């Protein structure tokens, strides 16, 4: 917790203009800073961005934990099931396809909201598809493979779309794809906060069934877990969180996958009563660290946050799997 707060302060203080930690602390305790520029930067850029980072980290990590347990697979994560890609396809259709689909007016009229909507719709559609297939296919591995196929499919569709789109539209989409956590207004942040808080409270009800699910579905069922209800509820929660987050900040890779693993390593347990709060803290921490690294950048150039999460997340996962011979969820 303390580490999280310190990281938060550091994250707020760094950027193209670095602001001393002391001043950041003063700002957060509600005082007005003498340096007007610093004050403006903090209130309009750094502070909302840091809140976004925390919410995104928490949301994605929770989703990753739920998915890894549901699919009892260490490689499950929001980006693996194709949910992020679904959201991406939605955005691509809007940004690049609107020209020949005749949606331009809609895009102009709604702006940011239309991007959010199309991503949520895209994510939810992929999720529904997976849900439908999971009723047919009881095997979790098959569902994972279908998720991967859906990712490939949406990627291909996006490539096709890019052929028909203008250079400007393509660029717009590419920038969305890099991930951007600094564009959210306070209303969007508040919405994310309320959404993630409500869903987290809902998840707490499922902590016990989640533990039982780790013993296998038959075992869980024989101990009174309502299998279909539990699985569907959790999948819907994941879909909403991932869809909304992806819409707002673009596809952020590896955070959802890596954080639950780090939590298991640190706490050496599979108990969701421990892992759930752990993942919330570590998820926030991970995003703050990644963004701080992105801000420091290379030769003063800011790196896209998605690149940092992948650069950090991928080796962490590989390391974890190599370190433990019989890797266990």
């Amino acid at each position, binding site marked *: 917790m303390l580490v999280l707060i310190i990281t938060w302060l550091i994250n707020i203080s760094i950027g193209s203009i670095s602001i001393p930690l002391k001043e950041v602390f003063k700002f957060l305790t509600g005082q007005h800073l003498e340096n007007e520029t610093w004050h403006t930067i903090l209130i309009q850029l750094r502070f909302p961005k840091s809140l976004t980072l925390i919410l995104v980290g928490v949301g994605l990590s929770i989703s990753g934990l739920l998915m890894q347990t549901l699919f009892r697979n260490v490689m499950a994560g929001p980006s693996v099931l194709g949910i992020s890609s679904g959201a991406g396809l939605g955005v691509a259709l809007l940004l690049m396809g609107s020209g020949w689909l005749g949606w331009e007016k809609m895009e102009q009229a709604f702006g940011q909201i239309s991007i959010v909507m199309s991503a949520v719709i895209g994510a939810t559609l992929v999720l529904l598809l997976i849900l439908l297939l999971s009723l047919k296919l009881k095997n979790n591995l098959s569902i994972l493979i279908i998720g991967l196929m859906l990712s490939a499919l949406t990627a291909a569709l996006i490539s096709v779309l890019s052929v028909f789109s203008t250079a400007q539209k393509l660029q717009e989409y590419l920038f969305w794809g890099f991930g951007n956590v600094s564009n959210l207004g306070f209303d969007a942040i508040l919405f994310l906060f309320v959404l993630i808080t409500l869903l987290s409270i809902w998840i707490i009800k499922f902590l*016990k069934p989640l*533990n039982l699910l780790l013993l296998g579905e038959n075992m869980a069922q*024989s101990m009174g877990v309502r299998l279909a209800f539990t699985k569907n509820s959790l999948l819907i929660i994941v879909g909403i969180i991932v869809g909304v987050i992806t819409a707002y900040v673009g596809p952020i890779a590896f955070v959802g996958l890596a954080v639950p693993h780090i939590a298991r390593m640190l706490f050496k347990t599979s108990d969701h009563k421990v892992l759930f709060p752990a993942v919330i803290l570590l998820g926030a921490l991970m995003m703050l660290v990644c963004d701080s690294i992105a801000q420091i950048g290379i030769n003063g150039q800011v790196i896209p946050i998605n690149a940092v999460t992948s650069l950090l997340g991928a080796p962490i996962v590989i390391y974890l799997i190599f370190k433990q011979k019989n890797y*266990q*969820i």
Partner: protein
Amino acid sequence: MIKEPTYIQLQTKNLSVGYTTSGKKIPIVDNIHIDIHKPTFVAILGKNGAGKSTLLRTLAQLQPALSGTIHINQKIVKNSSNDEAKLISVVLTEVEKGHQFNVYEMVAFGRSVYTNWIDQLTVQDKMMIENAMKWTGIQHLRHQKVAELSDGQRQKVLVARALAQDTPIILLDEPTVHLDVHHAMEMFHLFRKWVDEHQKILILTTHEIGLATQLSDEIWIIDQGKILQEPTVKILENNTIDQFFNTELIHFNKMIHTFEYIKTK
């Protein structure tokens, strides 16, 4: 007049078990009439693939019955729920090993049917867990991870988990398959004692025919889609085991409860 104590009742009517493949019902065992109304130790015997596990899993509500109904205390059991999990506990052969739970946590899961939403263990829960570990002799393993145990040890843990669930009916699918002779005998003895001391209905599938004929109350033999249900005494009396399991090479010696080679001249 002495009043009979009321025990749990397990009944089935016209139960037919099997699989459904692409809409077609493939029955494995038909016409199963179960009527148990007192503490009983039942051993289900049968060759590999006869349908022992299918019957057990259907009774456990882990797969749907093709037709017919299962009744507990005269009430039809439809699908698994928390209430049903307070009546029936299940021990399966296969268990997920992809987790880091230790033996104590695993046995404690048996109590999760009774605990509150945050899975808090009461004093009574803890007592039941200790008791279940003592019965199965796994107290010394309590801090070990379930995934790191031997198959035999893990099997004991699973049995302990079911004992901790403390249900009137307990179903076990080949609970001694990974145990050596010595431990298998110990386990059967434990089942016998559990049924007698706690007034339970215990049904298991097994290939340990000799142990079943020595310790069970009833034996059900599944063979070619049919089920024969008899008290164990009668099975021995009529040399029924020999009818189902003998070959040209072996026969069942009921005096010593073992198969032996037929001595050729």
